[in-house]
C-alpha cells in the first residue's frame, strides 16, 4: 500500500475516534423541574425542553398504544417545549439483559419497563429512582382506587426484602396487570360434546329455579338440563357433559375435561391433531396456593437478626387446614384469628417450639424434613371439632400438578402415575410457543395471562373464551353422611381460588436528571387516559378498579365474553415465586431438575425430594437472611 495512503488512513481513523471523547461536553440547560406538594409539575424557569428517553418492548399492539400515549403526552399544551418523551423500541428477547447492563453502566434511559423478576434486585442495587414522594403527592395515581395486591407489590423494602410492608418504598408503578385464567377452545368443547353454560356460583339457585338466564342468555330448561346444577366447573347431568365457565373446576374435573377434549382432538377426523393436548399450564402456583401451600415459608426465629428464616417447603408433606364455612366466630390458632374460608398459615399449624425458634447445629438438614414438625394439638382439636377442614399438603398439590404432564406409564410418586394431558413446558418453546399452540388449535385449554387477548382476537378458525383457574374441591357422594341442607354433589371441602398475575413496572433510572419529568409521563400512563388505551387494546386490565368494571375494559362486543373472570382473578392473584425473594437464584437448580428428569419420568418426586439440588436450596435460602 502506498505509504501516503497509509498515513492518511491512520490519521482519518484517529480523527474519527478523537471526537468521541468530546461527546457530552456541550452545555445542557434542560430539566431541573420539581413536583410540588400538590403533585403538580413546576418546570425550572429558563430551562430548555427535557428530552426524556423511554425504552419499551412488546408486540405491535402495545407499541402502537404507547406511541399514541407518547404523542398525546407530548402534544399536551403544558408539555410543549417543556417535556418531550422519546420512545425507543428495544427487542423483547434481549430486553432484560440489555437493560441490566445499561443500568449497571449508568447508561440506562430515563424511563423503562422492569419485569417482576428484576425489580427487587434493581431496587436493592440502587438503580431505580425512589418515587414514593411522587406517589404520595399524586392526584392521578391514587393507590386507594387501585388493585391493592398489584400496586403494593411494588412497595418494597430493600433492607428486609419484603413487599407491601409499611417500611417499603415505591420504585415503580405497574404498567398493567395480567391475571392468569384458563383460555379454552370453545369449538373443541362443543365438538367433544361439552355444553358450555355461564352461571356464577351465587346465582346457581336462581338458575336452577328457572328464574334466571345465564350470561349466555339461556335458562336451564333451554339448555335441556334435567337435574340441579351444582357448583362444579365440569359435570355430567343426564348423560350429557357441561362446562360452567364461571365456576372453577376441581383438580379431578380438570383432568377429566382435558382428557375428553384431548381425545376428541386426536381422534376426530375434522380436527386431526394427533399430538394435541387437552390442557397446558406451566405454573404450579394455583395448585399449591389453593390448599395453602407454598414453596418457601417464613419461619420466625430469634437466631436471625431479621427475626426469621426461610424454609423450603415445596415438598412439605403436612396437611393444611381451612376454617369451615359454617363457623360463625373466628377461630384462634397460635394466637392468630382466622375467619371462615381462611387457611391456617404454615407457622401456625405446626409446632415450631420443638426447635425453640432456633436452627439445629446441622442447619439445613434439620428443617428439610417437614415430618420433624408436628401439627399442633390445637389444630388437631379444632379439626376434630369440625371447625377446621383438612386440605391436601403442598406436596400432594405439587404432585397433582406434575401428574398433569407426566406420561401414564411413569410413576410420579408413591404409586401415582401421570395423567398425560399437558405437553411438557420444554416442548412448548416459551411464551410465544404456548400462544401459538393455542392459536393453531393444538391445545384445548391454556393457562395464561390477560396479555394474550390481543393475539387471540385474531383467531378466526375457532371460538374461544376464558374460565377461572382450577381449585381444590371435593364433593359429597352417596357414601357420605350428608349434613343438614347438603345434597350429593354439593361441595364438601374446598381450598381457595389462587393463582398468579404478571405485572411489569414502569420505573425511572436513579441516575436520570429528569425524574420529575419522567414521573409526569408515568403518571399519565397510569392515569385514566393511559389505562383506557391499554384496556381498549385488550392486553391489560386497568389499574383503577372502577375503570376495570366499565365497558372500556369489558368490551361486551369482543372476545372474551367472560371478561369478568379476569377481574375476579385480579382480586386474589399474586406475584409468582420469582418475586418472593430479591432474585431467583434459589429456584434455578431445583427447577431444572424438576423440568428435566422428574418431568421425563426418570425421577420420582421422592427422589427429587432427596436430590442434591433440592437439599442445596436450604443453604441458598439461608443466604437471604444472613448479613442483614
Amino acid at each position: 500500500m502506498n505509504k501516503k495512503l497509509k498515513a492518511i488512513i491512520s490519521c482519518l481513523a484517529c480523527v474519527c475516534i478523537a471526537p468521541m471523547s468530546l461527546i457530552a461536553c456541550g452545555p445542557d440547560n434542560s430539566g431541573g423541574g420539581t413536583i410540588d406538594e400538590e403533585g403538580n409539575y413546576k418546570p425550572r424557569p429558563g430551562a430548555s425542553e427535557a428530552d426524556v428517553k423511554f425504552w419499551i418492548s412488546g408486540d405491535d399492539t402495545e407499541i402502537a398504544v404507547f406511541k399514541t400515549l407518547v404523542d398525546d403526552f407530548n402534544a399536551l399544551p403544558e408539555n410543549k417545549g417543556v417535556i418531550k418523551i422519546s420512545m425507543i423500541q428495544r427487542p423483547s428477547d434481549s430486553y432484560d439483559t440489555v437493560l441490566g447492563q445499561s443500568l449497571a453502566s449508568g447508561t440506562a434511559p430515563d424511563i423503562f419497563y422492569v419485569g417482576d423478576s428484576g425489580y427487587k434486585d434493581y431496587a436493592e442495587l440502587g438503580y431505580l429512582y425512589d418515587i414514593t414522594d411522587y406517589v404520595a403527592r399524586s392526584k392521578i395515581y391514587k393507590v386507594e382506587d387501585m388493585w391493592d395486591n398489584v400496586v403494593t407489590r411494588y412497595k418494597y423494602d430493600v433492607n428486609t426484602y419484603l413487599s407491601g410492608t409499611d417500611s417499603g418504598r415505591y420504585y415503580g408503578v405497574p404498567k398493567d396487570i395480567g391475571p392468569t385464567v384458563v383460555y379454552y377452545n370453545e369449538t373443541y368443547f362443543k365438538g367433544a360434546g361439552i355444553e358450555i353454560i355461564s352461571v356464577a356460583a351465587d346465582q346457581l339457585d336462581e338458575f336452577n329455579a328457572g328464574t334466571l338466564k345465564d350470561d349466555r342468555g339461556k335458562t336451564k330448561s333451554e339448555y335441556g338440563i334435567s337435574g340441579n346444577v351444582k357448583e362444579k366447573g365440569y359435570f355430567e347431568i343426564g348423560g350429557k357433559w357441561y362446562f360452567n365457565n364461571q365456576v372453577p373446576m376441581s383438580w379431578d374435573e380438570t383432568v377429566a375435561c382435558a382428557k375428553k377434549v384431548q381425545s376428541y382432538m386426536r381422534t376426530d377426523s375434522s380436527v386431526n391433531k394427533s399430538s394435541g393436548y387437552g390442557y397446558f399450564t406451566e405454573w404450579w402456583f394455583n395448585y399449591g396456593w389453593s390448599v395453602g401451600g407454598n414453596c418457601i415459608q417464613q419461619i420466625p426465629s430469634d437466631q436471625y437478626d431479621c427475626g426469621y428464616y426461610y424454609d423450603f417447603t415445596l415438598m412439605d408433606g403436612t396437611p393444611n387446614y381451612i376454617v369451615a364455612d359454617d363457623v360463625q366466630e373466628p377461630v384462634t390458632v397460635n394466637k392468630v384469628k382466622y375467619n371462615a374460608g381462611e387457611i391456617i398459615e404454615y407457622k401456625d399449624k405446626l409446632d415450631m417450639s420443638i426447635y425453640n425458634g432456633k436452627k439445629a447445629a446441622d442447619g439445613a438438614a434439620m428443617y428439610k424434613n417437614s415430618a420433624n414438625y408436628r401439627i399442633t394439638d390445637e389444630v388437631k382439636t379444632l379439626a376434630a371439632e369440625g371447625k377446621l377442614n383438612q386440605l391436601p399438603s403442598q406436596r400432594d398439590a405439587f404432585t397433582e400438578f406434575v401428574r398433569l404432564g407426566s406420561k401414564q406409564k411413569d410413576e410420579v410418586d408413591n404409586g401415582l402415575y401421570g395423567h398425560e394431558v399437558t405437553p411438557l413446558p420444554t416442548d412448548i418453546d416459551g411464551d410465544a410457543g404456548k400462544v401459538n399452540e393455542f392459536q393453531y388449535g393444538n391445545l384445548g385449554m391454556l393457562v395464561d395471562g390477560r396479555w394474550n387477548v390481543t393475539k387471540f382476537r385474531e383467531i378466526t378458525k375457532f371460538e374461544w373464551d376464558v374460565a377461572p383457574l382450577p381449585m381444590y374441591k371435593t364433593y359429597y357422594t352417596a357414601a357420605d353422611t350428608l349434613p343438614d341442607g347438603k345434597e350429593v354433589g354439593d361441595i364438601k371441602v374446598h381450598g381457595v381460588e389462587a393463582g398468579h398475575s404478571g405485572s411489569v413496572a414502569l420505573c425511572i433510572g436513579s441516575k436520570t436528571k429528569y425524574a420529575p419529568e419522567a414521573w409526569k409521563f408515568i403518571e399519565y400512563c397510569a392515569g385514566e387516559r393511559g389505562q383506557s388505551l391499554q384496556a381498549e387494546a385488550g392486553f391489560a386490565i386497568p389499574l383503577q378498579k372502577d375503570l376495570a368494571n366499565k365497558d372500556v375494559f369489558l368490551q361486551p362486543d369482543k372476545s372474551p365474553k367472560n371478561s369478568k373472570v379476569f377481574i375476579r382473578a385480579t382480586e386474589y392473584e399474586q406475584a409468582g415465586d420469582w418475586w418472593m425473594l430479591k432474585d431467583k437464584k434459589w429456584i434455578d437448580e431445583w427447577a431444572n431438575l424438576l423440568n428435566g428428569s422428574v418431568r421425563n419420568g426418570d425421577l420420582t418426586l421422592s427422589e427429587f425430594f432427596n436430590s442434591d439440588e433440592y437439599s442445596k436450596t436450604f443453604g441458598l435460602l439461608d443466604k437471604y437472611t444472613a448479613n442483614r
Partner: protein
Amino acid sequence: MYLDKVQAKKKKHADREGLTGFCLAFIPVLGFCLFGLIPMILAIGMAFMNIRGYSFEGATFVGFGNFKDVLNDSLFWKSIGNTLYMSVSAFINIVLALIVAFLLTKKIKGKKIFRTIYFIPYVCSVVAVTLMWMWIFNNRYGAVNMLIRHFGGEPVNWLNDSKWFIPILILMGVWSGTGYGIILYGAALTNVNSSLYEAAKVDGANSFKSFMHITVPAISPTTFYLLITGIIGALQEFARPQIISATGGPDNTGVTVVFYLYRRAFEYFEMGPASATAWLLAIFILILTVINFAVSKLWVNYD
C-alpha cells in the same frame, strides 16, 4: 554533505513510517486495552471483593472468599463436568476432519464444491444453526422424532432429557466445526512431500502404513493447532446451550463454566464469584495448554 542529506531524509522517512505504524497499531491496541486488558485487571480486583452489581461503591475485600464460594458450589463442578463432556466434540472434529480431508485428496469430481459444502456450517450463525437443530430434535414436531414415529418407535425428548442434551450439543459442534479442520488439513495434506510416499511404496509399505507413518506425523503441527484451539473453544462453550435452554437445560446439563459465570454475573449480579470463575477457567485453560505443549514435543513433528 550529501550523505548527511540522505541520512536526514532516511531518518525523516523512518520517523514517518514509525508514526504510520504507531497510528495503525494504536486502534487494535486501544481496543485490546479497553475490552481486554482493563476488564482483566478489573476482574482480578473483583475476584477478591464482595461487590453487588457492577459498581465498586461499597465493595469490601473478602480475600479468597469468592474462590471458596465458587469451589464449594456443586453447580460449578457440574458445569466443569458438562464442559469437559461437551469438549469431546473437539476430538471428534479432528478425527472426522482428517478422514474427510484425506478422502478429498483423492481424485474425485467436484472436490472444491465438497470443500465449500463442508465449510458452510462453520461460517453459519451459531444462533441460526442452533435453532435449526432445535427444530430437528423438537420433541413433538422434529424431523428425527417424526422418523422414529414413522418406523413405530417411541419418540425421545432429546432436548429435555439430560441423557441426550450433551450428545446433541456434541453433534451440533461436530457438524459446525468439522469444516474448518477439513480446510486446514486439506492444505496440510497437499504440503506433504510426495517423495516420502514413493520411497515408502518402494519399501513395501501399504496405504495404511504410509498414512500412519508419513501423513500423520507430517500434518501433526496442524493437528496440534486444531487440538489447542478446539479445546480452548470447547472450554468456552456458552452460546449453544444458552440458546437451547436459557435456564440451563434439563438437570442443569446445559450449564457450562461460561454459562455459570454468565448467570452469576448478569442474572444474579454477583461480579465477585463471576470474576473468580473467570480466573479459575483461565488458569485451567492455561494449565491444559501448557500440558499440551509439553506433551506435543513427543508427537508433533515440525521437520
